[in-house]
């Protein structure tokens, strides 16, 4: 429903029946009706809404997994520092005009993914060097320090970016404006692959959420599981950041909302977070597109505002409920 609503509503409103008809015909390869509506729907709005939905689902899933793994309700994908690393990669690509021959759009994406992966290697390498057991506190601490470092380097690049400043700033605020079907496919593959790995570890995440020491006592291979989850989360975050920029609060707030509805058991929490994150980001994107029509707000700004207010409300409600 949210998907259809998001596709129908925008600077140009398209009737519900036309939307259904165009999408249905598009899926089955039937002849499409001519007109602006079809063009807007299929070339601009549908890929964008699909990308938004998948990015929201992915970020929310990563947040849910990190909150369980680190037993910390304030954790999300960005806690690890990978998100900042990916942003640094993308900003570098924009500032220096790095592109891939024949695939000019993929420069930012590939650089973000490469930097996300390198960030993970640096963070885990440092954590391993300082603390053999890879304790969650060490990982959080190094993640925070790495984020600060990456942000500083990013600031230096932005300072010298000249006329690219505007596009960098807009990108860092998060935007899925120009999302294509290629982007949709890339996020879908990442969500199926990395998200699948995370979903398969729901029992282990339950054990971590109860306590890492307890997880070890009941027989969880804590180091191996932690590495698998961290790699899956950073892979997924890297892809999302490369496509949508830094979109804050989705990974932090959605799992909290969902936890109030379905409880903390990751067997229910993770799939529900996937749905919740998709819906949350589609609604945020809808607001971003329509609130100041014809101007458009960066989606990251909308999620942060809604997220901050919602978070205070949820936190207050959960404290009262205890």
């Amino acid at each position, binding site marked *: 429903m949210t998907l259809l609503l998001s596709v129908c509503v925008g600077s140009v409103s398209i009737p519900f029946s036309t939307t259904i008809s165009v999408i249905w015909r598009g899926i089955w390869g039937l002849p499409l009706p001519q007109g602006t509506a079809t063009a807007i729907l299929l070339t601009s709005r549908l890929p964008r809404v699909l990308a938004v939905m998948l990015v929201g689902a992915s970020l929310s899933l990563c947040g849910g997994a990190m909150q369980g793994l680190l*037993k*910390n*309700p304030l954790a999300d994908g960005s806690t690890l520092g990978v998100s900042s690393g990916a942003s640094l990669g993308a900003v570098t690509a924009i500032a220096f005009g790095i592109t891939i021959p024949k695939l000019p759009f993929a420069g930012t994406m590939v650089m973000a993914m490469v930097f996300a992966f390198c960030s993970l290697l640096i963070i885990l390498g440092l954590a391993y060097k300082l603390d*053999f057991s890879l304790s969650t506190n060490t990982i959080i601490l190094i993640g925070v320090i790495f984020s600060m470092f990456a942000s500083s380097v990013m600031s230096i690049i932005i300072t010298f970016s000249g006329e690219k400043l505007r596009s960098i700033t807009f990108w860092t605020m998060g935007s899925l404006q120009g999302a294509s079907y290629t982007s949709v496919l890339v996020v879908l593959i990442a969500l199926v692959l990395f998200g699948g790995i995370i979903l*398969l570890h729901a*029992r*282990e995440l*339950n*054990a971590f*959420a*109860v*306590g890492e*020491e*307890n997880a*070890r*006592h*009941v*027989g*969880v*291979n*804590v180091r191996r599981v932690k590495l698998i989850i961290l790699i899956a989360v950073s892979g997924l975050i890297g892809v999302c950041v490369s496509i949508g920029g830094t979109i804050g609060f989705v990974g932090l707030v959605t799992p909290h909302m969902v*936890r109030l509805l379905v*409880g*903390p*058991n990751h067997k229910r929490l993770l799939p529900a977070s996937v749905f919740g994150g998709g819906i949350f980001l589609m609604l945020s994107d809808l607001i971003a597109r329509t609130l100041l029509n014809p101007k458009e707000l960066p989606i990251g700004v909308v999620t942060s505002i809604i997220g901050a207010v919602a978070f205070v409300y949820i936190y207050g409600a959960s404290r009262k409920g*205890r």
Partner: protein
Amino acid sequence: MLRVENLTVSYGDLTILNNVSFSVEPGEWLMIVGPNGAGKSTLINAVTGGVPARGTVLYEGKNARAMKPHELARGIGVLAQSHFVGYSFSVEEVVRLGRYAYAPTIFSSHSGEEDAVKKALEQTGLYAQRRQSVLTLSGGELQRTFLAQTFAQDPKLLLLDEPTNHLDLVYQKQVFELIRAWLQKEGRAVISVVHDLSLARAYGTRALLLDRGCVVADGPMEQVFTDEILNRVYRMDVRDWMSRMLAQWKEA
């Protein structure tokens, strides 16, 4: 059942455990006692691989360090002294985690899980509270929940690290009686770190007395709990102190 040989734990120049050796056989309840800083909790952690240690830990003749975590968990269960659960899991969800070792992958069979969880909840008197959030439990109920988890894990050897440290007398008795009942089944053994010498004496079948990381005495309770040994290790007249405590109750 468990053989520990020359276990040494050190952080830089600081040695916490120094060449500690002991063994436990089925039917025994080994009490690890000693003053603060003797290395009692570190010993439990080192046996389960929680801290890096030198030496050998053999469980049923196999090197415990080389065993897969879920294989080891089927043999050895651990009950920590306190727990902080951040999310509102139900009692049953926490107890169910005890069965992880029997189905470590999603492709493993979960047969027997329901019966084991139900039995563990009933044994610990938590069946009626199984849907209650662990965040709303008292300290004693929470400790019983984690004891139920270790019962569901169905290990042969139970390691307890000061299991009743934060509990009042009623819960102390409850937890120790539950463990004593659990030990009755053939082929099981318990090792527990205990501060309270009266509790150690009342429930233990053997004692391992540690002081500054070294074994001072190891043997049946009456051989370890002698005036000479206890006074030397605790640097006070233990019997006199205990007698004075008891006398106050008698006078009252």
